[in-house]
């Protein structure tokens, strides 16, 4: 019966077909080309250094693009697209008209008082008179070190403070005549009124629109007239009498006062002869274009706030970029490590949706080749790279969403680089086939105590909670020893970490004592602490999908139960966690982690002004810390910054707004002997070296990597 035979041979045919496939796949497997295969759990979103917001895109754009500067293997900033850079500063001060001191006199006073040695030490280059009362001081460096000395010579009483008036605008509202209530519009109306007032006009130094909802006016002298003018605009008088009071259109946010207005300037001298991957030359125009695109409100980028303190960016010639800042801001330099995008390609495109974001063109060591969505991104060696072509033919990033399966692919050498998880570390490091590296990760995990919740407002309670949490146990059993107890918000291997701050020891007795002091005691004998008839009980939230955080929460729950505190755990999907819990501050305590940049400035996390809308979602408020944070970000001197951040570290550890839990180690692994670093020695002979861990991570010298025993890739 033909049909019968056909029917029953179907399964057989399928079986034989796949058996053949298996055998052929097996035979071919094991051949390798000179490439490195990386992996990521999620697909990239946009391969554009000014737009991307995920790690996969970040890893690829780093290979394809260059910044003006970069961190080297010892975490020092060095030139990348810029060959070198200089920082200087122009500082302005104005004398009080009634002080009896004129500009000329003040100049000669400064010149006489400051010896040449002192000038050199303070790096003061020059003084200049700009008006009968205005002086400019030129410095060879940025910072405020000179300020004190200048104020000693010209006493503050003789100096007219410069006032910056910040006005917030309520963009939701409209003027009575129907005009949009934007900062620009409001400033326009204000200018008209000011221009009508000859006296006031002379005192205004500068206007600037900071954002669509914020503008500033800088002025000299008594601000009262100006304030009432602003008041008449943001609180317009009623058109028809008898109507109810109109709500104001804005508010005067704050007034800042300085004696000397400091404007740091960074000048980058660009490398000549650098070509984009399409052959066009790289010039300062590209840098300017990149900056302007970031600042364009239509661009959906997270990087805008990095550059908000830039006053202007000029390109005096095709290989020079001069950036003038509104005020000293020491973390500003590292923001120029961001990749530069080509003007000639994106000039007439909408940068949000441009095809460039899928086919990037950069200046980096690797050229973009192919991106298959949710599968892989491939970049190939850029033979014309300005530091010489890289040794690897290509780098592929595979997207494998299941983290537990990445390990399997690594084992069969289908991927080359794998971030070993803590519980796998022992197994991998004992295995002859693999080489596991170790370096501290830039981040820490913590429990944030929402201080708006009365329970955690008391510092004694927060300290008691830290005493009651056995962090060593968490490190030993959840990190399998691969990490250390965190004492504050900084990674322990960075220069700003204060080694004098010791972790609070695990001491449940001390915790109970502190809680008793704060009024928490087990009065009814049910095993739980209570105060005024209420049990010590709270909900600890975290995001689901992160086993480490969840397990941490479970251990903390158990540890706190031992001293009589009832903890409930709730897990939320990430997006819900942020928009329903953290952002509206609707939680009691949360387990979270920060991954940190290299600069110690954490203004958004700890400054009290960031409590309502920023990232200070625990409502940390310590005026001393506020002051130090502000000082730290306007200080350029390394030693002084170190001192400042050591103090901040100490104060935050004292207050325990978080219980700082741990800083994990990161443990990447490679197949033993699969890759080497190939360099050329003095005599021109190639040298192969083992791959070593650097402070900037394992892949810092990626351009020099080469696969041992590989087929060459046919073009």
């Amino acid at each position, binding site marked *: 019966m033909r049909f*019968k035979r056909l029917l029953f041979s179907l399964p057989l045919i399928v079986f034989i077909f796949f058996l053949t496939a*298996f055998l052929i*796949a097996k035979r071919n497997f094991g*051949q390798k*080309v000179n490439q490195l295969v990386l992996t990521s759990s999620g697909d990239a979103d946009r391969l554009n250094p000014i737009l991307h917001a995920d790690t996969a895109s970040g890893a690829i754009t780093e290979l394809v693009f260059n910044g003006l500067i970069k961190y080297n293997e010892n975490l020092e900033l060095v030139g990348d697209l810029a060959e070198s850079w200089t920082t200087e500063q122009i500082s302005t001060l104005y004398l009080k008209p009634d002080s009896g001191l004129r500009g000329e006199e003040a100049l000669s006073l400064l010149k006489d008082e400051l010896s040449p040695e002192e000038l050199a030490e303070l790096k003061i280059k020059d003084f200049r008179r700009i008006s009968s009362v205005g002086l400019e001081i030129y410095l060879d460096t940025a910072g405020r070190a000179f300020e004190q000395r200048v104020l000693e010579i010209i006493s503050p009483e003789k100096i007219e403070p410069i006032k910056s008036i910040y006005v917030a605008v309520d963009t939701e509202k409209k003027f009575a005549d129907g005009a949009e209530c934007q900062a620009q519009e409001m400033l326009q109306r204000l200018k008209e009124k000011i221009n009508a007032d000859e006296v006031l006009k002379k005192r205004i130094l500068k206007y600037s629109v900071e954002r669509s909802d*914020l503008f500033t006016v800088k002025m000299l002298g008594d601000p009262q007239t100006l304030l009432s003018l602003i008041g008449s605009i943001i609180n317009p008088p009623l058109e028809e009498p008898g109507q109810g009071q109109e709500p104001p259109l804005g508010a005067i946010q704050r007034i800042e006062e300085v004696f000397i207005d400091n404007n740091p300037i960074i000048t980058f001298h660009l490398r000549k002869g650098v070509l984009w991957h399409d052959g066009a030359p790289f010039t300062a125009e590209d840098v300017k274009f990149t900056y302007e695109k970031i600042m364009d409100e239509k661009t959906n980028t997270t990087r805008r706030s990095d550059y908000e303190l830039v006053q202007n960016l000029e390109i005096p010639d095709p290989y020079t970029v001069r950036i003038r800042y509104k005020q000293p801001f020491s973390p500003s330099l590292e923001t120029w490590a961001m990749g530069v995008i080509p003007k000639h390609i994106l000039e007439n495109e909408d940068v949000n949706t441009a095809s460039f974001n899928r086919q990037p063109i950069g200046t980096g060591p690797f050229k973009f080749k192919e991106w298959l969505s949710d599968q892989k991104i491939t970049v190939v060696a850029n033979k014309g790279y300005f530091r010489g072509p890289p040794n690897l033919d290509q780098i592929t990033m595979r997207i494998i969403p299941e983290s537990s399966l990445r390990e399997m692919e690594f084992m069969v050498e289908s991927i080359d680089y794998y971030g070993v998880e803590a519980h796998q570390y022992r197994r991998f490091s004992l295995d002859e086939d693999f080489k596991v590296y170790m370096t501290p990760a830039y981040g820490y995990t913590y429990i944030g105590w929402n201080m708006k919740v009365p329970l955690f407002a008391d510092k004694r309670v927060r300290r008691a909670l830290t005493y009651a949490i056995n962090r060593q146990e968490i490190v030993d059993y959840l990190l399998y020893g691969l990490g250390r107890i965190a004492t504050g918000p900084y990674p322990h291997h960075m220069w700003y970490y204060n080694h004098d701050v010791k972790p609070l020891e695990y001491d449940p007795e001390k915790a109970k004592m502190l809680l008793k002091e704060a009024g928490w005691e087990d009065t009814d004998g049910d095993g739980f602490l209570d105060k005024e008839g209420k049990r010590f009980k709270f909900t600890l939230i975290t995001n689901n999908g992160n086993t480490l955080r969840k397990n941490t929460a479970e251990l903390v729950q158990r540890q706190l139960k031992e001293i009589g505190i009832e903890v409930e755990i709730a897990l939320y999907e990430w997006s819900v966690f942020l928009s329903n819990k953290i952002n509206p501050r609707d939680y009691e305590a949360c387990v979270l982690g920060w991954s940190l940049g290299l600069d110690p400035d954490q203004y958004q996390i700890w400054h009290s002004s960031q409590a309502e809308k920023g990232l200070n979602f625990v409502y940390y408020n310590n005026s001393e810390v506020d002051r130090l944070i502000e000082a730290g970000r306007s200080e350029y001197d390394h030693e002084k910054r170190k001192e400042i951040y050591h103090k901040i570290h100490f104060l935050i550890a004292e207050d325990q707004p978080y219980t700082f839990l741990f800083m994990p180690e990161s443990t990447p692994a490679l197949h033993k002997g699969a890759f080497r670093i190939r360099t050329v020695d003095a005599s021109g002979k190639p040298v192969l070296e083992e791959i070593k861990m650097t402070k900037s991570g394992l892949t810092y010298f990626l351009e020099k990597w080469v696969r041992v025993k590989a*087929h060459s890739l046919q073009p």
Partner: protein
Amino acid sequence: MTTYIIRRILQCIPTLFGITVISFLMINIAPGGPIGQQLDPKVSPAVIEQWEKNFHLNEPLHKQYGLWLKDLLTGELKSFKDGRPVITKILERLPATILLSVISTIITFSIAIPLGVFSASHRYSMADHATTFLAFLGISMPSFWLAYMLILLFVKGFGLPVLGDRTFGLPGLGVSATFFDRAWHLLLPSLVLGIGGIAWLSRYARGSMLEVLEQDYIRTARAKGLAEDEVRYGHALRNALLPLITIFGFLIPSLISGAVITETIFAWPGIGRLGYDAVMSRDYPTVMTLATISAVLVLLGNLIADVLYAVVDPRIRYD
């Protein structure tokens, strides 16, 4: 028949409209939003506000819905996540999803039907009980657990990679080697995807075959003295399998609805993962478009199934 089809299609329009409205409401009511997915110190509230404006998220809901509909119909719809046209994003995943579905369907049919027929013709034998039991085992398997066990077997046992749709990092291979490499990578995901189907379909084929074997005309055929094989495979089988054609109607939606779990595990770049990622990152345009397309396919599949049914079984008449 034609009028029937036209009437059915017209009936689908309000349903479709209802679906888009409900899914639009649901995704907008759902907590979490497309913006501010990271706790990034660099994202200031002003930036977030500007983004909301750029994505029209500050408009009232009915306006947003109108904008979405307009963009969808004009093909202008852009993803929130990467600014690419949603249609492009879907089209680029389509081949992978269809390939997987088709191969999985082929495997399912070519294993399940012989199994069911065999089972039916050896009713109540040990072999029948064994296939029944195996079929139920297949239905009862959590698919991700099965996938893990299979991957473990092949990776540990044979040292062969199975994730993705091809082996990575091989030097240029010939056409046939590439073909078989792709085929190999298809095996496990389509098997995992199809295992439930194999079990279900073999049960269905068995039942259908048994029913036909009890029909009078089969008895007549036997009485005529035809060989048993001739009766079974010549007469009964064809009639038993005809109703199965309608299943193709129901297969159409599965071509695109995808399988989130299987695709996630096997790193398969299909529609299911696109949809899952879109829901997670609250990429409203993508989610909405996928929901609409999948609804269209379900409605279309139902229609095709009904029509095929009428074609196969002349006793059924639609008017």
